[in-house]
């Protein structure tokens, strides 16, 4: 009974938001060509889907985010394990990383465009920059948070450094690493849209900026809502993976 009620509330939340949107439209706060009504956005969604335009933008954006995210995870996780595990790696890597980290990903856009031109590569690079640090820092925190008594326990069983790293430190960091991946994919997605708005001729970010330029606001809003929906879906997917990987957790 309780679950059903909550489900209803969730649906109600969306319905109410659309209603508020429509009421603002009726009140004429913005003219209709600047704030299209939900019905026009729905119509645009249908026509953009039917023409295949939306799908091609979604596909290219997803390809970029997945590529950038995989590179970020592929470097961030091993490097994070190294920094968390070895004092030498920590001292070597940390000063540089601490200086680079506060630079907002958006601030990388100009140089990314100079280095990589337009399109796929600068976008992937920006996603990498955005996703890398959350993944790295969470991995480091996970490794450092490894229970000392677990490490000692496997040492008394005869574990070498390598055994300890593989059998204790890495698995015990998984919850933290997955949390980093979830944050990383979110930040990466935001960076992607920013990159596509400035330096690309395709993708959801490009679609939004293009249609705003020609005042097709209902298409702009389709783009924005799809960006939101995909961001939500990716975070949800990682959460499901997390539940499965961490089923041993309390």
């Amino acid at each position, binding site marked *: 009974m309780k679950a059903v009620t909550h489900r209803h509330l969730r649906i109600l939340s969306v319905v109410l938001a659309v209603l508020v949107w429509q009421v603002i439209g009726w009140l004429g706060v913005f003219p209709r060509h600047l704030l299209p009504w939900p019905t026009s956005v729905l119509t645009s969604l249908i026509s953009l889907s039917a023409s295949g335009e939306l799908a091609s933008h979604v596909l290219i954006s997803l390809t970029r985010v997945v590529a950038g995210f995989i590179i970020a995870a592929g470097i961030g996780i091993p490097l994070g394990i190294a920094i968390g595990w070895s004092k030498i790696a920590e001292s070597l890597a940390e000063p540089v990383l601490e200086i680079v980290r506060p630079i907002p990903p958006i601030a990388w856009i100009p140089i990314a465009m100079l280095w990589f031109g337009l399109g796929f590569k600068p976008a992937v690079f920006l996603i990498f920059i955005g996703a890398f640090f959350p993944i790295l820092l969470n991995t480091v925190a996970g490794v450092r948070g490894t*229970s000392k*008594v*677990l490490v*000692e*326990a*496997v*040492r*008394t*069983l*005869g*574990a*070498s450094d390598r*055994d300890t790293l593989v*059998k*204790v430190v890495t*698995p*015990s960091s*998984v919850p933290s690493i997955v949390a980093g991946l979830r944050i990383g994919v979110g930040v990466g997605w935001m960076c992607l849209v920013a990159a596509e708005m400035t330096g690309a001729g395709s993708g959801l970010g490009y679609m939004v900026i293009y249609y705003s330029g020609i005042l097709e606001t209902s298409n702009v809003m389709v783009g924005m809502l799809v960006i939101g929906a995909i961001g939500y879906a990716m975070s949800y997917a990682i959460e499901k993976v997390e539940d499965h990987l*961490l*089923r*041993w*957790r*309390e």
Partner: protein
Amino acid sequence: MAVIELREISKVFSATSRNEKDVEALRRVSFTVKDGEFVCIVGPSGCGKTTILRIIAGLEESTSGSVLLDGTMVAGPGPDRGMVFQEYALLPWRTVVGNVQLGPEIHGVDSETRRKIADYLVGLVGLHGFENKYPRELSGGMKQRVAIARSLANDPKVLLMDEPFGSLDAQTRTMMQDEVLGIWGKTKKTVIFVTHSVEEAVYLADRIVLLTARPASVKESYDMRTSRPRNRLHHEFVEMRSKILTALSEEVGRENWRA
């Protein structure tokens, strides 16, 4: 054969900051544990019982003195000495079998043999039917059974137990004491068991080593001659217990006086 010999073990923990002082934990601790013997170490809390065990396990280095296992000096942890921790220290992402197999797995034993070892040990500690449970699904007593099975999987010469039942309720604790005596009877391992409960020591041990307050050294060693299972209400048991408690309270008193 598994004879453990401690020769004049001393341990000083160096101060880690300027306003700390060096702490002398152990001062020339010497005793010998015979093959197959069940020895309990008791002493005032904070006196360094656990430190002794950790030095034997190789998790801590002594400042001076040496530990000999069958005449060979111990350096660093090794599978010849199994350790059971008060906090169980089970890997939470591994099932019961996964935890028990850990030692053999580290030493490259093939999976079929590992499976057999785990199967035997899970049975030995009375956990058949729980093979595929995760630690979070087990009670404290069951977790400690898993930890004991895991430390036995390497077939160590010595079993080191660091207040293994310290966080269990009284009832479970009593049960686990009988359990550990049963396992000891079947495996004939040499056991060094640290506890702060004199009663537990009198119930379990062949011999009790009583330590002084810090810096700890051996104050007294008591041979327990009564046969097992021991009756906690028997006058011999009660006498031995009060004799050791009296000696222990002298040490606790000294510590308080110093503080």
